[in-house]
């Protein structure tokens, strides 16, 4: 047995599907997607046995602010693409600015959501529709918040110099998670906000 300091012919830092952590993220996103789809199914299940929708004389949501919010949230993904692209070339500034921009847009989104909540004429305990409304949007909001925490964490690590053109797994996973949260919002918007108007 030679033992000794033999060569390590394999790369140490990998990203994409070669990294176990990426598979971890995928499976985590899979389980979260199921959770959201079940929330949506529950929405339609309760709706299908309801005589009026929204229940209890609540008016269907006003679409203006949610529409703006949709644009904001979708836009917040763009700087992340740019940040990821930058770090792959070793551009630290691009990484930091990109994450900061996305963070800001996320914060605006959450602020607008909270403003919406405060203006609603009903509470989660009014009836099943109200419960669904708050739980679906609130649950998504929590995800936005978690995404922002991940964003902040990545920012801090960027300042600590953890990333370069070879080591960007953390950047990649934080931004993929954010994209996932974005995509979920499209469904939330379509189901909670638009569907009561059109279906």
């Amino acid at each position, binding site marked *: *047995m*030679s*033992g*000794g*300091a*033999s*060569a*390590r012919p*394999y*790369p*140490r*830092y*990998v990203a994409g*599907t*070669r*990294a*176990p*952590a990426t*598979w*971890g*993220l995928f*499976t*985590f996103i*899979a*389980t*979260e997607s*199921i*959770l959201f789809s*079940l*929330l949506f199914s*529950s929405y339609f*299940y*309760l709706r299908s*046995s*309801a005589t009026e929708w929204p*229940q*209890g004389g609540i008016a269907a949501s006003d679409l203006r602010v949610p529409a703006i919010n949709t644009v904001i949230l979708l836009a917040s993904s763009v700087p992340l693409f740019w940040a990821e692209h930058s770090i792959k070339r070793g551009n630290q500034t691009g990484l930091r600015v990109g994450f900061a921009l996305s963070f800001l847009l996320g914060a605006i989104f959450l602020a607008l959501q909270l403003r919406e909540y405060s203006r609603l004429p009903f509470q*989660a*305990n*009014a*009836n*099943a*529709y*109200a*419960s*669904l409304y*708050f*739980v679906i949007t609130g649950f998504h909001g929590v995800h936005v918040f978690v995404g922002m*925490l991940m964003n902040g*964490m990545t920012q801090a*690590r960027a300042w600590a110099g*953890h990333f370069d053109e070879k*080591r960007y*797994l*953390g950047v990649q*996973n934080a931004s993929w998670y954010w994209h996932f949260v974005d995509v979920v919002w499209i469904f939330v918007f379509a189901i909670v906000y638009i569907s009561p108007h059109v279906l």
Partner: protein
Amino acid sequence: MTAAAGRLTRAWGEKNFLTTVFGTVDHKQIAMRYMITAFVFMGEAGTAGLVMRTQLAVPNNTFVGPDHYNQVFTLHGTVMIFLFATPLLIGGFGNYFVPLMIGARDMAFPRLNAFSYWVYLFSGMLLYSSFFAGRAPNGGWFAYVPLTGPKYSPGTNLDFWALGIIFLGISTTSGAVNFICTIFKLRAPGMSINRMPLFVWGMLVTSFAIIFALPPLTLGASLLEMDRQFGTHFFDPDAGGNPLLWQHLFWVFGHPEVYIMFLPAVGIVSTIIPTFCRTRIAAYSLLVLASVAIGFISFGVWVHHMFSVGLPPLSLAFFAAGGMAITIPSGIQIFAWIATIWRGDIVWKTPFLFVVGFLVTILIGGFTGVMVTAVPLDWQVTDSQFIVAHLHYVLVGGVVLPIFGALYYWLPKITGRMLDERLGQIHFWLFFIGFNLTFFPMHFMGLFGMPRRVYTYEPDYGLTALNLIATVGAFMQAAGILVFLANFVKSMIRGDDAGDNPWNAGTLEWATTSPPEPFNFRDVPVVASADPLWDAPGETKWDDRLEDPRGGQREAYGTSVVDADVSEMLVMPGPSYLPLALALSMAALFVGILFQVFVVIAVASAVGLCAVALWFWPEEGNGAAI
């Protein structure tokens, strides 16, 4: 050679007592904790079973009253399913043997693994604390609303249940994520996906089933908790909710859950049979396909638990057909095992005895399963003792018997000591006969009209005798388990030395010492077949390049998903207190929610967030970061 082992031990071993107890990330340590914890829970839940059987031994008994009885059977079912069978199979056997069977040094995320254990322990304690507070959950293991809603269960009993379940789900899910990544990325070089041991296949399918099946449970329990604490109306028919939503959510989880327990057990059977028949398993690829098929179909049959809620005939027929479809892969499994036995050359040892017991009982349990998928028959027998019979035949016969087999098979690897054969056989016969005495009569009780979940019955129509027999059987099972405990103690005191491979088995866990060193294998196996230890000498090669860990780091190979070609170097994290800290803060958070103490909630969240931040902050010189 020993120098290499010394270097590896320095990298992979524990530093001191404190880190060992509170900070270990060694999958074997964690697995043993899982096993011991799960067994304590089994002892408690089994004792609950004895309490029920004592109450039901004679008609109009007053051993426990209805209130107590309801708590006892709810705890029994919940604990057996959530805190005994699932964690023992996945966290215990899976954790210990998946890395060994695939020739890895640890799980893919060792700290997450430690975290899973702590969360499991604390959520179990949360659930059980209710019992000592005299407020054990009392709504049955599937906790149907509205009974479990705020109006009809005002106490905190059900809050313990719902929060405990949500909390535990975090552990189960992170465990499943860990297994998928480990199995996909950490297999020994050359262990392509068609050379993976069948137990590993079982764990893989089960992990995927968890990923897809846990969310409905978590969601259901969260909605229930919101109904209970925040006044939402998901399940309240008076305000637009629907109690059937709960049943759908629960069983979309609940049905796959039974296969989540069954598939690892099946994997155990497929591991033990070839070893004791001294031949390769027959129809390996069909067995893999069968596991995958069962995993898939199990998501399409949940309604068979709801046949009597008044659904339209068409959907009843659809779900009946789905349930029957599961019979085909199950039949393939049974026949593949028989073919292996047929071909083989049998060594009658205790593990094999338990597997033969399994084969016989799973037939009976499977057949009663098919009977209850026949909708009109289910209308008659559902919620009767017939179902209690079915579920114990498949759970005790189909899951617990393989668990015992696995203990006799694998404990020598874990402890380095053999168990006693004679005591093992006594254990088997006591348990097997006792089990059949307990649960076979329940079929008749059900047919004669005795419902489940009743704390007593009238002295009439043959129920008395049947119940008495069942009670006697339950105590026989307990005696069998006591014999097992004695056997274990005896083996620890003066059991025969196990050696590396006492059974002459073919899979990799037997290629290393018993018990294995902290780093599992000194050299990395390079695999050329499905049973590497049965290959001609020299066919399995050993890669010694990791014998000298760079900078004392925990190095391992990462391999590609399908072919297991080495593709990168991984560096695993060492011991850490963070998993414990995070789990503790989450436990505090849940207790805070339970009693609605907002200070606790706030502090716990803050501490938890700090722990997460530190967790993802890579240690110096150890870029094991995500």
